[in-house]
């Protein structure tokens, strides 16, 4: 997961690497995802999460395309 200053920078990077576009998030979306994904990571009771829980987090921040399945 990488930062790009513009869409043109992202497209140039994809072309140079020969990769196809994956999914692009805004900073706000990424922060929402980070808060939900990592808020309890330091807790001794955190033992990972189920696929259902992962899906719920993705849905909460609007990540619903096939990329996130």
């Amino acid at each position, binding site marked *: 997961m990488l930062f790009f200053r513009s869409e043109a920078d992202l497209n140039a*990077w994809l072309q140079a690497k020969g990769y196809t576009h994956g999914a692009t998030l805004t900073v706000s979306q990424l922060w929402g995802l980070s808060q939900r994904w990592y808020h309890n990571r330091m807790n001794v009771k955190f*033992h990972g999460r189920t696929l259902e829980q992962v899906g719920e987090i993705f849905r909460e921040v609007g990540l619903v395309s096939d990329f996130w399945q």
Partner: protein
Amino acid sequence: MIELPEQTLWDIRAFVYHHFGDTIHAPSLDETAVRFALTRDEAASAYDALHHRHAFFLKPGTHEILIANPFSNIDTTFRVHANGKTYFANCAWDSLGIPAALHVDADVEAVCSQSGEPVTLQIRDGRVSGSDVRIHFLIPFKHWYDDLVFT
């Protein structure tokens, strides 16, 4: 592989994470062995078990912790200034994951992967601001753990 009690494994996971939080680095195998009064072989088995459960990830062929998301045990271009320390994140996502995990204000210092231009983000009181950037995820979710370092 030496089997250890489940609770010991999860206590070791928490110890590793708090060691990162306190020092920016993972504990060595010897530090973990001493902390839990284990032999080196027992600590190595615990590390292997937690690696296989994706609790953290070892450098291949070693018992050195490489990644405990969002923390990186090696220097990266994703720097997170918080708590008077500079943490290293594994990727753009993890650079916001560190303040989210530690529940602290932070300054993220990174670069655009194409232009090399600086990217700076600030986390204050649970809100993010800073550079106008987009974050690209290359690998679909179902393949994230095929090759975590590449992901």
